[in-house]
């Protein structure tokens, strides 16, 4: 049975539709990421589930019970705020105990439960500290312990890691995943950070302008984005706009881009496309130097010639920007461990990618 079910939930602010007919369900123990740019309605959705915002139409069910009319404190929803919202006048232990007092945990159980929760988030021994005496990461752990202490039916995390610095974020992300799994918490993570969404979620729901655009596993979202928006929002991408020139067997068609280049794409949908947006992920492009000699022609392979514009070695990855004829720029990401050609700006190179790596979005304009 689904722990949470949203049926056609809509919320309007005046003329602006913040949440537009959202349908969402989540099974027990699963982690669902709600991903989208700011203003897409994901935070409003979260606030509707928590009960802080009332929806105009639709049904919100928790464990099969309509909770639309219930106040936040009448629902058992654990909420982790972006800024943690720890009570500054209470100690760590008092913060964790706060919800238990109201959720009817027997007072004899509270001390052992505090201990248990703090050891879960690796904060044992910090009971007597005040939030101001804790680092950002520690505050996050305490906030998580506080949210989980009441054993909520559903846990909502609002941009859980965005206030932390990059390195700590990665560490805590792994730990957060482990903690949520160990308590079998049904969780919704609201975030605009794709890494956070893809790494934490068993499934990812992408929202845009109040609507759900796609729902799928992290791999599906990245490899088979439902539309141009998802492809653009999740991961990096190079874009071309083109018109069909030829159709070949095996689902391969060739497009002439607005810059005059020819790109071949292999896709099940290519049959219907007249004009289309073509997306190429930067990591699916190979770089071949001019000196490497001619490349054997292959109908399912694209070869674009350009000039290296910029090379940025970013640790594990190297970002190479190629300028194609017509001033179009192409981003190529190669792993640093690959024996990548030691290209330098100004050098002439060929960008090679398979036709099957081209994502095709028909242009409905």
């Amino acid at each position, binding site marked *: 049975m689904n722990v949470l079910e949203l049926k056609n939930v809509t919320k309007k602010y005046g003329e602006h539709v913040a949440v537009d007919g959202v349908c969402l369900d989540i099974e027990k123990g699963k982690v669902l990421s709600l991903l989208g740019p700011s203003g897409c309605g994901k935070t409003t959705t979260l606030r509707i589930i928590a009960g802080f915002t009332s929806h105009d139409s639709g049904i919100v069910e928790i464990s099969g019970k309509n909770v639309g009319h219930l106040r*936040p404190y009448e629902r058992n929803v654990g909420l982790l705020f972006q*800024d943690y919202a720890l009570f*500054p006048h209470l100690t760590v232990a008092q913060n964790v105990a706060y919800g238990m007092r109201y959720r009817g945990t027997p007072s004899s159980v509270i001390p052992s439960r505090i201990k248990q929760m703090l050891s879960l988030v690796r904060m044992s021994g910090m009971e007597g500290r005040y939030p101001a005496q804790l680092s950002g990461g520690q505050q996050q752990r305490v906030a998580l312990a506080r949210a989980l202490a009441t054993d909520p039916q559903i846990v909502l995390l609002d941009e859980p890691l965005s206030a932390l610095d990059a390195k700590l974020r990665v560490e805590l992300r792994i730990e957060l995943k482990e903690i949520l799994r160990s308590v079998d918490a049904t969780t919704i993570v609201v975030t605009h950070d794709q890494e956070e969404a893809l790494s934490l979620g068993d499934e990812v729901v992408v929202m845009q302008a109040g609507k759900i655009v796609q729902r799928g596993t992290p791999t599906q979202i990245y490899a088979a984005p439902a539309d141009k928006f998802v492809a653009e929002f999740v991961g990096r991408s190079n874009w071309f706009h083109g018109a069909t020139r030829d159709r070949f067997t095996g689902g391969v068609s060739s497009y002439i881009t607005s810059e005059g280049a020819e790109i071949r794409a292999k896709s099940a949908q290519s049959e219907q496309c007249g004009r289309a947006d073509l997306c190429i992920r930067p990591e699916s492009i190979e770089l071949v130097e001019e000196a490497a000699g001619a490349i054997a022609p292959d109908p399912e392979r694209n070869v674009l010639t350009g000039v290296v514009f910029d090379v940025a070695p970013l640790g594990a990855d190297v970002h190479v920007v190629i300028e194609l004829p017509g001033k179009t720029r192409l981003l190529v990401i190669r792993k640093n461990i690959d024996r990548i050609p030691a290209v330098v700006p100004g050098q002439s190179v060929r960008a090679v990618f398979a036709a099957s790596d081209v994502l095709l979005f028909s242009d409905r304009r």
Partner: protein
Amino acid sequence: MKTSARTTILLLLPAVAIYVVLLALPLSTVLEQSFRVFTPGRIGSEAGASLTTENYSELFVPVYAHYFIRTYLLAFCASVIALIFAFPIAYYIARNASSMARKSWISALIGLLFLSSLVRIYAIQLTLGPVGILGPAMSFFGVNMSGGPYLNFVIVAGLLHYQIPMSILILIGAVLNLNPRLTEAAQALGASAFSSHRTVTLPLCIKGLISAFLVSMTLGVSAFAVPWILGQGRVLFISNLIYSRFGEVGNYPSGAAFSVAMIVLSLLLIFLMSRLTTLLDRT
């Protein structure tokens, strides 16, 4: 940049001079007067009058002690009532009102403080006084409009007229400083609206509440015109007593002793309240 000791002294000199001439000197004159013997019929003490503590022992005469008790008690009641009224209003203005509405509220409150004190007092007199519009209703319910309890009530109403807007303005700042997520966090954890305010909002606004209380107390204790007019001569505050000592009887030493006692009491109050703040404030 390092400043030498000499420069520091030179820079402080103007401020020190102002403090000495305008504050320390007049206060020391008052203090000095309060220890002088007064000869009735004179204005102020005689030059070179002998020293005495009699002016202070007079404070403990029941009649005078009552002035103190009444002043502080009524000011205290009014300050507490002011907080009770002001806090929800301040919370509403800070939290729920649109920024446009908030601006209008704040302007209106500041405007209210600019209103002449006499206008406010006579407005209350015309409403709650013996010939006021509520007079018939009061006499219908059998309220003695010249009795002490009723006059105390009218004086408290007069004090609230100052204290409520002032307290609201102070508390708006306190509520604005409070992270609104905290109340939500409390409610998400199961605390009802009331409990979340009791356990989170109030403890975190304690500094603002105590500041508002102290300012209200100051306004209340030092009130002069409010008891003067609304007390109908039957209920008077220390300020009125001090005025009559200085202005009507010419007994400067006695008036000075009352003034010094008031200063000491007020300092004591501020000390106690700041101790209370440190005790209650855990942030």
